[in-house]
């Protein structure tokens, strides 16, 4: 069985982290306590931040691999 590229696994991790963030936010909105909100401020935002970084990194890497970006080592050489 073929393994999916590393980028896809990274994107799946980003999706999972974003889902955890959404669930955390739901808990804060439905059952608010100051302690829960404080935890959300530190850990919830951290989850979202990491998910966003992973998304941007993986998408850029994917675009670069497909030579859709005008920079990077994968850019095809142009003949003079």
């Amino acid at each position, binding site marked *: 069985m073929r393994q999916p590229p590393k980028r*896809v696994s990274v*994107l799946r991790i980003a999706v999972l982290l974003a889902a955890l*963030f959404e669930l955390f*936010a*739901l808990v*804060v909105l439905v059952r*608010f306590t*100051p302690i829960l909100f*404080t935890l959300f401020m530190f850990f919830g935002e951290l989850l979202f931040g990491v998910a966003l970084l992973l998304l941007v990194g993986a*998408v850029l890497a994917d675009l670069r691999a497909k030579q859709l970006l005008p920079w990077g080592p994968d850019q095809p050489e142009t003949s003079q």
Partner: protein
Amino acid sequence: MAQELSRRRVAIIALVPILSPVAAAATEIAVPRPKGWIGTVNDWMVGLGIAFAVLGLVLLALAWRSLRTGAVTPTARGWLLVAVGLVPIMVLFLCFSYGLEASSTVQGCGACHTMTPFVRDLENVKSTTLAATHFKNRYIREAQCFTCHSDYGLGGTVAAKFEGLGHVWRYTTGSYTVPIKIAHPFPNLRCLHCHAASQKFLNSEGHPKEAIPDLVANKMSCLDCHGPAHPDQKQAARQ
């Protein structure tokens, strides 16, 4: 017949926990809502926050599905951008705004049991403490604890929120001593922000004009004459 009666009884028993909050609310004075009432900003923030969070979860499921092929297609990129990038920003904004507001309420402060004597005193209509007088007469409409314990303006709010983080840390780790004491002397400016411009304050014999600079400079405290602000904690705990 007997079977039908028992069925009705079961239905009534099942309805009691659902209807009891409604019955409790009915005992309070029913002040009619203004015409066109659509809820408070906080109600909307909670409602929209929940809606966006649920929408986000659905979109994340779709984004996960779009990655099934093992390749990052343009469609998958679109789902991912919306589900991981855009919707959570909305959820974060709504949750954060709601949290900042909700943590400023009396219920928010009272969530920690160390605050119970203070909140109980506020709600005691027989109490003559300064805080209770302000609370029961609605001199401050809402967020009564936060209003008196934060300086005015954005800087005051930010400073109070950071102090609140410290309170949560000390409460969670148990690194506090009882009875609780205020961290800094209470600045008169927090009182004067409301009272200084009132005619009752300006024309009172108890506030001669020559004493006002001392009040502004915190050389004498409003609480010297108008205290205590809160009940004695040991006594309140016994009640």
